[in-house]
């Protein structure tokens, strides 16, 4: 009996030790490109929003990032697939290999004060963006200066660049309601649960004031200064795929293909100049 117990325990300990050993080691992603080439496609993790990745009337996935990814895939001779993910699980999805790129208006910068470069390798930045404050149209007269936002309730996407901006404006973390997507934050605002939302300017330009968000408007208070930022694509750390995607981006920019796609979505003035230089 005792011997058996000892054997069982040692088995458990061996399993435990191997588990902890493998989890400590830096994972090696330098063979990513070979693997992607072999299987013939790469997977982009997305959430659905205009103008980056969204469904048109026919139910087809379109958008700037969608077409951009397809163009990159074309150049590399593989296929681009898109997987709708929970934005909060994006690093988990990336590191477990269920997606290969985070490509969905992904801001090059920090998240909760931690630089995102800790989690991913970025490709070239390709599009300029800002965070922007959205309010209900009827509040436009009262919420007209930075001071008016102090102590107000805000809705943001958890883990987004807008979260820290909203925290700065409201002055208190407790005032933030965090959601799965930027669209959910807007919904919260139009339903009257919060006083303002902070989302990407590119998204706000495409969605605020139309359709389901007709009652919303972009806040134009001149004393709210928000640092400009850029979008880039996130790849696994140490992956050799990053260089491949960069090569494709440079070529597409040189040939004017990227500019064409940008024009289609009204983003031609927001492309990063001298991309890749």
């Amino acid at each position, binding site marked *: 009996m005792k011997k058996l117990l000892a054997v069982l325990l040692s088995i458990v300990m061996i399993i435990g030790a191997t588990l902890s050993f493998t989890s400590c080691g830096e994972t090696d992603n330098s063979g990513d490109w070979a693997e992607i080439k072999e299987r013939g496609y790469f997977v982009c993790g997305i959430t659905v929003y205009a103008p980056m990745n969204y469904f048109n009337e026919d139910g087809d996935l379109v958008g700037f990032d969608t077409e951009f990814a397809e163009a990159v895939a074309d150049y590399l001779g593989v296929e681009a697939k898109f997987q709708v993910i929970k934005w909060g699980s994006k690093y988990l999805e990336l590191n*477990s290999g269920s997606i290969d790129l985070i490509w969905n208006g992904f801001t090059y910068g920090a998240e909760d004060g931690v630089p995102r470069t800790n989690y991913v390798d970025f490709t070239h930045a390709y599009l300029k963006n800002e965070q922007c404050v959205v309010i209900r149209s009827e509040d436009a007269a009262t919420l007209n200066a930075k001071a008016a936002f102090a102590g107000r309730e805000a809705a943001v996407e958890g883990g987004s660049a807008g979260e820290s901006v909203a925290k700065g404006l409201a002055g208190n973390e407790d005032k933030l309601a965090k959601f799965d997507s930027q669209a959910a934050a807007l919904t919260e605002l139009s339903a009257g649960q919060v006083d303002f939302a902070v989302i990407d300017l590119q998204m706000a330009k495409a969605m605020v004031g139309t359709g389901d968000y007709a009652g919303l408007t972009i806040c134009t208070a001149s004393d709210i200064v928000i640092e400009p930022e850029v979008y880039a694509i996130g790849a696994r750390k140490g992956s050799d795929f990053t260089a491949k995607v960069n090569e494709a981006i440079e070529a597409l920019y040189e040939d004017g293909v990227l500019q064409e796609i940008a024009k289609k979505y009204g983003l031609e003035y927001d492309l990063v100049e001298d991309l890749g230089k």
Partner: protein
Amino acid sequence: MGTDFLSITLSLLEGFETTCTLFGLTLLFSLPLGLVIAFGSMSKFKPLSWLCRLVVWVIRGTPLMLQLFVVFYVPGMLFHVRIFSGEDGRFTAALVAFVINYACYFSEIYRGGIESIPKGQYEAAQVLGMSKWQTFRTVILMQVVKRILAPMSNEVITLVKDTSLARVIAVAEIFFVNEMDYLSRGLVWPLFYIGAFFLIFVGVLTLLFRFLEKKLSYYKI
């Protein structure tokens, strides 16, 4: 994408199909697997019975949501193997997690049912010269089925609603479809509409179980 009643119904039905498939396949695999685990934990070979009880303890003792994360993400993160790749990868991962989880719950119901049969019946069968397997198949099994029907119907109905947890790994079941397409755009009523889908489905199951109970109520005094 339209937001009229018909197109919402159609797209929700598509999600509900995934929900139903997940439900059906989970039952199909976890019912027999549960019996295997039940036999394992009743085994006279102690290490096997310990192992089965340990597994049941771990699976019943941790949230199903966590198990979904572990099944889908951990193989890729720790060992760099992508078991669940391809189109149906997420669904398969969810199915594996659900089957293991429900098999453990079922195994305890089976065990309770089997152990509730009086010892005298085994002894009587032995006197009549029946083998162990014969005894189980012809004497014990159907009595067990009758006894466990009520707790099983409980678990099965819980499973219908638990399938919505699969959305944490982005399986396109009905709640995930609704969250991504409608809730995120401020449409709240589809959420309650989904409630009707489940209510009808569970209603059918309830009738089915009532029918089975009636069917199996012979020899009742």
